């Protein structure tokens, strides 16, 4: 981020060189050309591909640069538009930049790769953490590989062991079967037949380029293709074999571009430096990583269910039958079973470990703890058991782990999902659940909002917490009348006496605490002050007023609780 802040753009820099106009119905290209930031924002949020090309083979960033719309360009870049000078599109943007400011902006973004989704980033890390793959990366960056870390095996925290190694032109690439199976029909077939039990595969064909295959496998993991232009033809050939049709199509089209862009080769002599970067979002949705993993997950779930039924039906003959069954059901390459509340899920270690540190530690620690001892008899897969978790929540969670998204979620499940997300260290999941939950909160009772506030504070779901606090601050009187609200006050830690939070005096630098860990009541007071829009110089008094108010409410609550306890003792009747 810091390099972004470094480029100094004056406010008047954003006074565009061309008059801005509104294009309320325009597409992303029109919006970029017109500099209509609102429209552009809407389009980007709706998930349009920033790196798509229009009928003139231009990308949106190109138009923004050409017209000198700095803020539009910045918005596109922040959404992951490619601007590396080594690429066809990026080079064109640099070339077309209207003025130095635009160029500066492009330069500032050039060093940073566009952001990856959490799933892609996690799998990419797993891929790059494999020793052989990392050494490639280091070589290409001209660094000396650090030999010490290489032999740590599975116990190293940043490493999840691969289950297949390819040797191309004598150099190894490490990978995981399930990912390759998910992404390419060719690998899927091979892993079911010839390579079923093989740990390493040696390609002896001279023509197979290491760099191209590396780039492709990297793409399989990260949904981002980054390849030298020189290797692209090799990659097209490999795609043909691997039956990655849509990627192949895009590459073939790009090759034509590169051919026509040959005049640029004169300028930068070293053509191998020129690279082509492709974001997964440029491919049809069906061919992207989440979908591919989703398919695998479906298969695995079907298999899990089948096994479950089988087990219930014929408990004794399980070994025999399952071995027969395996050939019948579709291979899912599951390598671990997770038992949740009597149900067994077939899962993939690589996905679990990549997404969750908990599972990574758990899976690599199997030998050290009790879990390594007993294997369930139904098959050879290792089995781990998770307690305090419902089947439904686990299903949702693995859906998220595999696909980075949740189809639909029941607000009833939300709480449990928050718990699972915290427990399995899947912090982005909280956001997803929160997004799904927010619309429901608009029509819940104050009592329920109190419940959500407590929950969101506990699990650190900022979005929900903010929402609840806002609602309470704006409707403070309503809440003050609610018994649940008063009861809640008792469970919360008392407001802090930190004057810096309640006065207008600036707090000491570094003394701020992140909102997630802040005191709920302090934050509520702040919100209330904001909502009441008290004069600045009266803030302190208003805050005091609020504190007094709270104190009173708490007093009432305490009385109520005493009554409630009596009530509970006397009868089973629950009020409300």
């Amino acid at each position: 981020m810091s390099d972004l802040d470094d480029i100094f753009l004056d406010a008047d820099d954003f006074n565009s060189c061309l008059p801005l106009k509104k294009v309320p119905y325009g597409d992303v290209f029109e919006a970029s050309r017109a500099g209509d930031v609102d429209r552009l924002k809407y389009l980007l949020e709706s998930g349009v591909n920033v790196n798509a090309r229009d009928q003139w083979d231009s990308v949106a960033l190109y138009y923004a640069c050409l017209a000198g719309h700095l803020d539009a360009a910045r918005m596109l870049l922040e959404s992951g538009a490619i601007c590396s000078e080594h690429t066809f599109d990026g080079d064109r943007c640099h070339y077309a930049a209207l003025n130095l400011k635009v160029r500066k902006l492009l330069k500032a973004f050039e060093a940073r790769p566009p952001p990856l989704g959490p799933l892609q980033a996690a799998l990419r890390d797993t891929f790059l953490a494999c020793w052989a793959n990392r050494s490639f990366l280091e070589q290409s960056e001209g660094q000396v590989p650090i030999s010490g870390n290489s032999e740590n095996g599975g116990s190293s925290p940043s490493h999840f062991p691969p289950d297949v190694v390819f040797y191309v032109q004598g150099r190894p690439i490490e990978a995981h079967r399930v990912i390759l199976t998910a992404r390419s029909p060719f690998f899927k077939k091979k892993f079911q037949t010839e390579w079923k039990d093989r740990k390493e595969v040696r390609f002896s064909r001279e023509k197979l380029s290491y760099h191209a295959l590396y780039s492709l496998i990297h793409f399989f993991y990260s949904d981002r293709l980054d390849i030298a232009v020189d290797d692209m033809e090799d990659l097209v050939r490999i795609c043909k074999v691997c039956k990655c049709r849509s990627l192949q199509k895009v590459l073939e089209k790009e090759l034509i571009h590169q051919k026509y862009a040959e005049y640029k080769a004169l300028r930068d002599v070293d053509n191998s430096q020129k690279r082509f970067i492709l974001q997964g979002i440029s491919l049809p949705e069906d061919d992207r990583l989440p979908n591919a993993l989703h398919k695998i997950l479906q298969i695995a779930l079907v298999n899990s269910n089948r096994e479950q039924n089988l087990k219930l039906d014929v408990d004794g003959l399980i070994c025999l039958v399952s071995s027969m069954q395996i050939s019948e059901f579709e291979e899912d390459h599951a390598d671990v079973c997770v038992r949740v509340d009597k149900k067994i899920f077939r899962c993939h270690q690589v996905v679990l470990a990549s997404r969750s540190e908990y599972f990574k530690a758990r899976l690599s620690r199997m030998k050290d703890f009790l879990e390594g001892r007993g294997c369930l008899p139904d098959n050879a897969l290792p089995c781990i058991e998770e307690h305090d978790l419902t089947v439904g929540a686990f299903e949702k969670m693995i859906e998220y782990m595999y696909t980075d998204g949740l189809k639909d979620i029941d607000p009833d499940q939300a709480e449990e999902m928050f718990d699972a997300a915290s427990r399995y260290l899947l912090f982005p999941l909280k956001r997803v659940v929160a997004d799904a939950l927010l619309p429901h909160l608009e029509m819940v009772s104050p009592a329920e909002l109190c419940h959500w506030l407590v929950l969101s504070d506990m699990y650190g779901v900022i979005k929900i917490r903010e929402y609840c606090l806002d609602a309470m601050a704006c409707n403070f009187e309503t809440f003050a009348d609610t018994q649940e609200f008063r009861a809640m006050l008792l469970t919360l830690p008392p407001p802090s006496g930190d004057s810096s939070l309640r006065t207008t005096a600036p707090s000491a630098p570094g003394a701020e605490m992140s909102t997630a860990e802040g005191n709920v009541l302090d934050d509520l007071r702040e919100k209330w002050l904001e909502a009441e829009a008290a004069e600045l110089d009266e803030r302190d008094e208003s805050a005091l007023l609020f504190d007094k108010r709270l104190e009173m409410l708490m007093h009432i609550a305490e009385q109520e609780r005493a009554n409630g306890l009596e009530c509970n003792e006397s009868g089973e009747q629950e009020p409300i």
Partner: protein
Amino acid sequence: MSAQKKRNFQIEAFKHRVVVDPKYAEKTWKILEHAIHEIYNHNASGLSFEELYRNAYNMVLHKFGEKLYSGLVSTMTSHLKEIANSIETAQGGLFLEELNRKWAEHNKALQMIRDILMYMDRTFIPSTHKTPVHELGLNLWRDHIIHSIKIHKRLQETLLELVQHERTGEVINRGLMRNVTKMLMDLGSSVYQEDFEKPFLDVSSDFYRLESQQFIECCDCGDYLKKAEKRLNEEIERVSHYLDTKSEPKLTNVVEKEMIESHMHRLVHMENSGLVNMIVNDKYEDLGRMYNLFRRVSTGLLLIRDVMTSHIREIGKQLVTDPERLKDPVDFVQRLLDEKDKHDKIISSAFNNDKTFQNALNSSFEYFINLNPRSPEFISLFVDDKLRKGLKGVTEEDVEIVLDKVMMLFRYLQEKDVFEKYYKQHLAKRLLSGKTVSDDAERSLIVKLKTECGYQFTSKLEGMFTDMKTSQDTMQGFHAAVGAEIAEGPSLTVQVLTTGSWPTQSVNTCNLPSEILGVCDKFKTYYLGTHTGRRLSWQTNMGTADLKATFGKGQKHELNVSTYQMCILMLFNNADRLSYKEIEQATEIPASDLKRCLQSLACVKGKNVLRKEPMSKDIAEDDAFYFNDKFSSKFYKVKIGTVVAQKESEPEKQETRQRVEEDRKPQIEAAIVRIMKSRRVLDHNNVVAEVTKQLQSRFLPNPVVIKKRIESLIEREFLERDKTDRKLYRYLA
């Protein structure tokens, strides 16, 4: 969304039911504490990871993070105290092993604890700014084990002792050492530096100070260096085996300082084995070792270079000023070359072809070669010798090598114009007498001179070659035109030399015999007929002739003589006895030349075609000469050389010197004028400096001479003195 469903709603979250139990935290912590104990006791396989993690997670979630964390600290601390006890009680050599074993165990346990407390590590610790679990474990280990009073000192001493053992040649357990030092590094580089590296360096320093003192007392320079090198390599190896790589520069620094820097001067000047001795005896290996070791010390190379330079200057000075050596110029130059070769080889094989050393060598040579004013002459004589006979049967490459070496010496010369003068003379002699062995070699040398000193320097030399070529063509034309007429007479070969290109010689024509004169006149008319407006004058002092003579017993010989000698011998066609005076009158050869000719004709044994009365070595004015009837020789062809002084005699030298000085005058003047023309106004010192700079490639002008030239130019009104500042000169034009 149906509000019905959630009607039965509780404030307490569904997890809160566990908190209802007031002893919840206590109970959960007991479970975790038990687990930590079990992990330390290697009983972890009885624990459920999932359960432990879940418990730790719930504790943090329900705000018992603080309890969990402090519990962890106290539990770990108590375990470490136990460990410290067991390490302390370990006996002698087992101490390190025990420490290492416990460290490995602690590490493993720490990782497992970190994993089960991962949720705390991720959420609670960053938000409360506490030390992460792993780091906490290391810090506790550091505080309770490494810094515990009983262990700290013992550990340090044990480590240093082991290193000391290894230095004295014992075998130690390097793996153990590596593990222990790695542990110190894992605890933080400051721990490693404070608790091990610093005392280690101190001990090393003491050790090597002592050892180097011992060595220098009992070893000669070469042996000492060998030992120092061995020690240095040992230390580097030690670092690679069990120390942090960052220690390497520090450690080598200590060795360098103690073993080399503090004894540097003594080593270099060591009697019978120091640097000079090594150079004299060509001990490349020792020299190379010295270079490599001294290079590590800041002033080491400077010292070597200084000593080497002064040594070379000393040797060279002896060489060029030794009067014995001056007798044989060829040998003199050969010695210089040998000296240069020797030192070149030392620099290339021992001193890594160090540029600064090469420069030092060059400047030393430049220094002492110019100590001897006759060096230019000698070098030219050396070339002359090589080109006359030395290059016979030698391949082209070898010729090139010899010439390159000569050029190298030439580069050292300050008075390049003196060399040119001599070279011109010697070249003229070679060309005219047809003594040149290889035309290619001659031309190659000229090209080299040209690249070195520019076109002007060699234009006259090249002119000489052109003259030789055109003369050949002229002779062919002459024979074709008048060949028939002169077929009977003696055959004539004329070389037409351009005045100015050749070394000027006073024209002392002698009377040629009439037979020759006729042919000469024919050539003269032919030449002037084809080239109008030219003047021909005969340089009889430079010619040669072949005579056919019949002696007393009828034996015939062909005599190869100079033109002067030919003139003398021709007189004896008509007389058997001639006195010196008669010969002088008849030929009009200058007296000194005549004497030399007669000497070679009459006094050299085996070549005495004349007989002299009285028989003495020297020629006197009243001697008489007879045709020697009894002359005999094994060969048909007899070459009668003139007795030539190879080296210039003293007066000749003076003359050459004068000519050189004379030639320099216009050059200096031209340089002054060039400079003043561009500068307009310049003060005296700057003029002198610039003139020196401009003429450096040819010679080193004397400031006094420059001053004289300036004065002469002022007289001729090229320059004037500034009216106010007498030191300033103005250019007038």
